[in-house]
């Protein structure tokens, strides 16, 4: 294994021959370099995409702080080198290394991949390969680091089951510490890998795929995924932190331009809206809100320590943050005149949102973004994001009248039962919004319509739904392209092939692992980057494995079909999702669950946590019953 000095020497020789060498040298303010030899447990946190994107990932930042705060552990980072750098690294025998100390990844005890989206899977394989670590969990032993993954994509871990020793399901803040404890003890006692993995599998929220096996029906559908031994759980329930730990304030500051250059403070986790297409809204329940004082203090400390020029206040639905007005006033008062941009994404479509943005509008104001997601009232009921047209038009008009010249509207096509009329409604709505804008600002007004394609994600009420075929998607996109041809309108869309890949990867079962492996062997990587995505490689990989891609994406699933992710629980009951899906088919909306509890399943599973944290911090009803009578939960 190369030493950090040897890696350094080789790097010197290649860095000037690649684009943006600053991606590969570390040395950022607030990066942490601890003494290698005195840390008992060493973890590499890997974001398997380009540095420019990964550097602003909040999940990595949270875990980096958490691990480095422990006296007995250290965390360092690695990202995916761009293709030019990868070629140089392979040519000069430079393995994937950590930015802080330049140790090869293989020298760490634990390597944790962040997998927020599925198109990172081939990059993950590529990075393991570049690190000289066997790709398959079965090919690794005591000489190799433990390889784990976490992040939203891991709510269906099966497509990556062959490559990971373990997955973290749900929020990582507490469970990662427990994993480090186990690992530290295992190292001290010289515990074998199999033994350690068994300990991990018994840790709540940790899925160790080698202790489970999948059986299939003759028609190829899944019969069950079940444990192969009695001492691991049949269903792995996600982890959830009852009280959000303090927000990170020591943001790593890149020395080169990144995609996001900002402090990001999570004001709230979870969402009570229940939009049926939204996976994040289901898997991040319950809603927990930080206090205004905590957010403002964290923002102040983070701006001070990072020097960033932008502050983003993040949540899935900022308008629903209870003290939003108070927060915006406090942030405005604190940061006015300090040449900062404040971003408050995910606002509801209502005039109050315009007031909020007005208060935060600094001198560098960008466009205003709203996400109606659907344009016909029928479709808005189906997806459970009901906003009347008049409200959208009034809000748009207000935005333009207050001087924003660009409005971005996000929609999706491919919702269940969608027809060309529903797509035409997107065109009509955009035209009407543009007319409002012209009335307010004249011809300099701009509209940006971003239209992505719906993918029925695991753990949502729409998980039974089929993805549109490429022909259906193209027909809808053609209609949009024709109908929105206007010099004031910019239309962007997702290529049908990109949608299909994401759909296969997010809905796949264990057999998909072989497809991913075959596609990577054939050269697939950076699949989320248009110029690198090779659809043909994926089709060939399916063929090589004797699998039909349409099986995964274009079937309407019967209610009883077993899903590859059924043994992974986000605490929301399948029964609740199915009932909500049926309501959707009947065109019935379900109100915000802050108004009344619909018993999604969170409270019975996390009754103890709720009892321990009473009051307004959680947005679920309080649990008053004594702990003993908890099983069964709410009526």
């Amino acid at each position, binding site marked *: 294994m190369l030493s950090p000095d040897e890696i350094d020497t080789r790097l010197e020789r290649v*860095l*000037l021959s690649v684009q943006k060498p600053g991606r590969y040298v570390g040395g950022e*303010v607030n990066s942490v370099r601890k003494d290698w030899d005195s840390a008992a447990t060493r973890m590499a946190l890997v974001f398997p995409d380009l540095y420019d994107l990964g550097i602003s990932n909040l999940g990595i930042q949270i875990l980096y702080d958490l691990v480095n705060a422990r006296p007995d552990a250290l965390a360092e980072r690695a990202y995916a080198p761009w293709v030019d750098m990868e070629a140089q690294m392979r040519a000069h025998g430079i393995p994937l290394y950590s930015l802080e100390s330049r140790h090869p990844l293989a020298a760490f005890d634990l390597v944790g991949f962040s997998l927020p989206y599925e198109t990172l899977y081939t990059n993950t394989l590529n990075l393991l390969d570049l690190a000289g670590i066997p790709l398959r969990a079965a090919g690794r032993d005591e000489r190799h680091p433990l390889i784990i993954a976490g992040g939203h994509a891991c709510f269906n871990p099966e497509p990556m089951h062959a490559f990971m020793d373990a997955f973290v399901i749900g929020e990582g803040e507490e469970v990662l510490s427990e994993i480090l404890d186990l690992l530290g003890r295992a190292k001290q006692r010289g515990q074998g890998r199999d033994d350690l993995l068994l300990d991990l599998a018994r840790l709540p929220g940790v899925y160790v795929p080698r202790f489970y096996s999948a059986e299939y029906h003759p028609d190829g559908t899944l019969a069950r995924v079940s444990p192969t031994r009695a001492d691991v759980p049949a269903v792995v329930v996600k982890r959830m932190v009852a009280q959000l730990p303090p927000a990170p304030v020591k943001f790593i500051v890149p020395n080169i331009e990144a995609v996001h250059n900002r402090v990001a403070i999570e004001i709230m986790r979870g969402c009570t809206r229940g939009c049926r297409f939204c996976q994040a809204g289901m898997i991040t329940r319950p809603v927990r809100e930080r206090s205004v004082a905590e957010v403002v203090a964290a923002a102040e400390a983070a701006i*001070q320590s990072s*020097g*960033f020029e932008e502050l983003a206040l993040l949540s899935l639905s900022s308008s629903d943050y209870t003290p939003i007005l108070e927060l915006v006033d406090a942030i405005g008062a604190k940061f006015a005149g300090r040449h900062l941009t404040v971003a408050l994404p995910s606002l509801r479509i209502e005039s109050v949102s315009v007031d909020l943005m007005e208060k935060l509008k600094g001198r560098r104001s960008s466009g205003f973004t709203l996400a109606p997601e659907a344009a016909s009232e029928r479709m808005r009921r189906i997806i459970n994001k009901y906003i009347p047209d008049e409200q959208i038009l009034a809000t748009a008009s207000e935005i333009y009248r207050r001087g924003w010249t660009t409005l971005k509207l996000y929609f999706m096509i491919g919702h269940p039962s969608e027809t060309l009329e529903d797509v035409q409604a997107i065109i009509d709505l955009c035209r009407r919004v543009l007319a409002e804008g012209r009335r307010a600002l004249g011809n300099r007004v701009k509209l940006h319509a971003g239209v992505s394609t719906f993918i029925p994600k695991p753990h949502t009420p729409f998980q039974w739904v089929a993805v549109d075929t490429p022909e259906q998607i193209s027909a809808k996109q053609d209609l949009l392209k024709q109908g929105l041809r206007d010099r004031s309108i910019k239309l962007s869309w997702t290529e049908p092939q990109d949608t299909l890949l994401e759909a296969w990867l997010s809905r796949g079962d264990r057999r998909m692992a072989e497809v991913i492996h075959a596609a990577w062997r054939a050269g697939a990587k950076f699949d989320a980057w248009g110029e690198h995505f090779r659809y043909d490689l994926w089709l060939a990989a399916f063929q090589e494995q004797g699998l039909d891609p349409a099986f995964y994406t274009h079937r309407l699933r019967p209610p009883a079909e077993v899903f590859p992710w059924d043994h992974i629980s986000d605490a929301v009951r399948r029964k609740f999702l199915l009932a909500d899906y049926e309501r959707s088919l009947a065109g019935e909306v379900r109100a915000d669950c802050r108004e009344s509890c619909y018993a999604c399943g969170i409270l019975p599973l996390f009754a103890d946590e709720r009892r321990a944290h009473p009051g307004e911090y959680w947005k679920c009803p309080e649990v008053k019953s004594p702990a003993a009578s908890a099983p069964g939960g709410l009526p």
Partner: protein
Amino acid sequence: MRVRLTFSKTGSLRYIGHLDLHQVWERTARRAGLPLAYTQGFHPGPRLQIACALPLGIAGLAEVVDLWLDLPAEPPLSPQAGAEWQQALQAAAPPGLALLSLAQVDERSPALQTQVAAAEYRLSLPPGITGLDAQVHSLLDAPSLPRERRGKPYDLRPLIFSLERRDESLHMRLSMREGATGRPEEVLRVLGIDPAEARIERTRLVLKDEMD
């Protein structure tokens, strides 16, 4: 108030480009609590001028930057306050950025970029080069050194103000005016040395009023 700082840019910061260095200064000043002044207009930006771009990979040992602060020029910056600012900036700077001096300059003095006259370089040479002294002599004796850059011919000789060998390194002072910039790699090529084999450092920027 306008202040002039000299600084070194070494280590991993050598791989950070000119535009990114602007951003590094803006953030360093914000972390240090120094109130940078901003330009007016649609896209306000911090008012700062870096004397001249340093090519990627080359360490700069005495680079110069001017920062405008949202503070009155009078009363003048006391040496003590200047030292405190320098300390605060140093504490806020990323690894590889070292503050060497800080002093107030006249607000009305011309743009820093127009005041650079020359740059001095130290080039550490690979071992085993023979006959270098003779090469240096003949280069200095040459009345002209016709070279080409991006398809355009130019004479390198008048851009070389001094060139001297000291043990295993070459020291040179090259012209650094707009449209008349001598490049150390070109000098190496004339001497028959592959620039990739040498380690180049820019040891000093010479401003017009400092020229002998």
